[in-house]
């Protein structure tokens, strides 16, 4: 049991939830997602995002389309699928419950 491992696991779950939430607001391409996550200080480096996107896409929660770019290679624009939306609704609920529970417990301990 090491703290890095626990932190990584916690962040992983939250990251997936956040990516889905960000995409719920509209179609975005990875750089947009990255800047939002960086703003929120959820990630420091960009590399973290790519395997997560591929995983969520393979799980059927996301889908993407190609769009030509003026500068550089064509971009993948991601959006939620119907399953992804349902998934997110459930996660929203779970997150509320969890954050309440965590708040309650940690406050008691403090």
């Amino acid at each position: 049991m090491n703290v890095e491992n626990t932190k990584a696991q916690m962040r992983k779950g939250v990251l997936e939830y956040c990516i889905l939430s960000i995409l719920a607001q509209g179609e975005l391409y990875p750089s947009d997602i990255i800047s939002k996550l960086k703003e929120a200080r959820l990630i420091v480096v960009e590399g973290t995002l790519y395997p997560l996107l591929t995983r969520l896409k393979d799980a059927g929660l996301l889908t993407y389309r190609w769009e030509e770019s003026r500068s550089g290679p064509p971009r993948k624009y991601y959006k939620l699928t119907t399953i992804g939306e349902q998934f997110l609704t459930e996660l929203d609920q779970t997150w509320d419950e969890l954050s309440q529970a965590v708040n309650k417990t940690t406050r008691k301990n403090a």
Partner: protein
Amino acid sequence: MKKTLTANISGTVYHIEEDAYDRLHRYLESIRSQFNGTEGREEIMADIESRIAELFTERLDGRRQVVSIDDVDHVIRTMGQPEDYVMGDGAGERQQQQEQGSTHAGSATSGPPAGRRFYRHPEDTWVGGVLGGLGAYLNIDPLILRLVYLIFLFLGFGFVLYIILWILVPKADSAADILRMRGEPVNVENIKRMFSEGSERFQQGARNVANEAEELGRRWSQRERATGRGLEAGVSRFLNVVGRILGVSFLLAGAVLILIILGALVGGGSITYDNLTGLGEAGLFELGAVVFDSSAQAMWFITSIVLLALIPAIGLLIGGVRLVTDARPPRWIPWTLSITWMMALFASIVIGARVGNDFSEERSTEHELVIDPPAGQTLYLDLHDMRGTGGNWEVNYSRGRVDWDMEGLRITNDSIHGAWARLDVVPSADSVFHLHVKRGAHGRTEKMALARASHTGFTYVQSDSLLRFSPWVDMPRNDKLRAQMITFVVKVPLGRAVHLNGGTGLLLHDVDNVSNTLDEDMVGRTWTMTRYGLNDQVRPEDVRDEVVPMEQQQGTPNDTNGPNRPAPSAQLEVRNGSMLPDLLSMLRR
């Protein structure tokens, strides 16, 4: 002045300085190895490359032409170290797997690796790199290991062991694997150092990719990128196909072998053998008990032998599964199998040597038995005890069971009976029939062999001119089966004959005769002892008529060791000569 290369990154062509290219290439390689075994690796890599291309475009901003090493460093800072890529991607699960001792080759983990791993060495290799890798793992000079291995090879099982390890141990095929093999943490610094050490394979690899990058000026489609890169991908795809085919054949061979071995074990419970009252059954272990010192020893020996055969079969199966599915078995499996196999080998050698030692000396005793002379010229020989067809042992395999058909073996509580007595017919030194019996056995010492030989029992019956022999060799059970043998020797005087009745086919063993007739073909005929040996073309009375004149003609009256002399010309004479006296004797009647 700096040399620049042309690189195609995600469909856009960049001019890139050589040192920048090297750093970028190493960076991508180490990311790639982080995703070893991850589904969708190619797609992730394509996305990352795409992002890197964007970052370059942003940096160059139309003002500069060439990507420099600073740009690459900027990209690496932005994208993160290879370890960062898997932070969110199943890092927890992987960590757990690793803690359970799984050999998930190339599995990416955050933080430093737990320690060294056993890989096959990609460069320090004579055959498959097993010992090179073991050397790196144990931090021993592989040359020492190879010398030790040569000893194992001469002991006879080194080969199988090597094959098993070759199959089960993954090859270190990425920079990260090599670092893990050496027990060094996987990070960009170390990978960089590895390159500067001049690891030839990687330099070459980098050069190949550089050339490739220059050649491939065209835009790759998504699909092409996902499946591979040109020649390199073609070769790896070919190897992949070969691997799968090998894997399937390993799987099949392993499965069939395991079925046969288990079948033998299950069927081993029903060895059928002749009994005085019909067919009896005995377990493999009960049979073992009359060969081995104890049934426990028999059990250990048989178990060891089964394991010796079973473990390589399991190894084949695992290797097959690995080649077909890329799934790697937990590390303890090959270790346990190898250690068990070595133990089985050791046990079977020790027990085998003990039993084998009891066969080391052979002794036999011979003495004459009393028989009445037959009324006529001919002694009739036959089989006494028909129960037991004698030594006709078969192992049949059908429907997953092995039947050990051991006819002619009978085991009671205190005795063993084997229907394998032999009969020989030789010339007599004088003018009467003699019967000798030779009893032989093996033992640890001459004394024990002789004791066992004298313990053996045999049966023969005479009624007038008919002499009948039992095929059964009787021995005390405590003596164990130690190649006890009974040989009846009938000695026939010159000018007398033996008739071999039907039953003797079972007993006859390599009986000499002038026409070199095989034992089974000698049955049912009358054989007369001539001075050249047994002959079925002449009658006893002919020998007497014939022998004297022929000797006079040739003027060799002193040639009296005739019976044993193998002279082809003499045989011819007898045959030719035999026809005339035959006719003459018929005329005389």
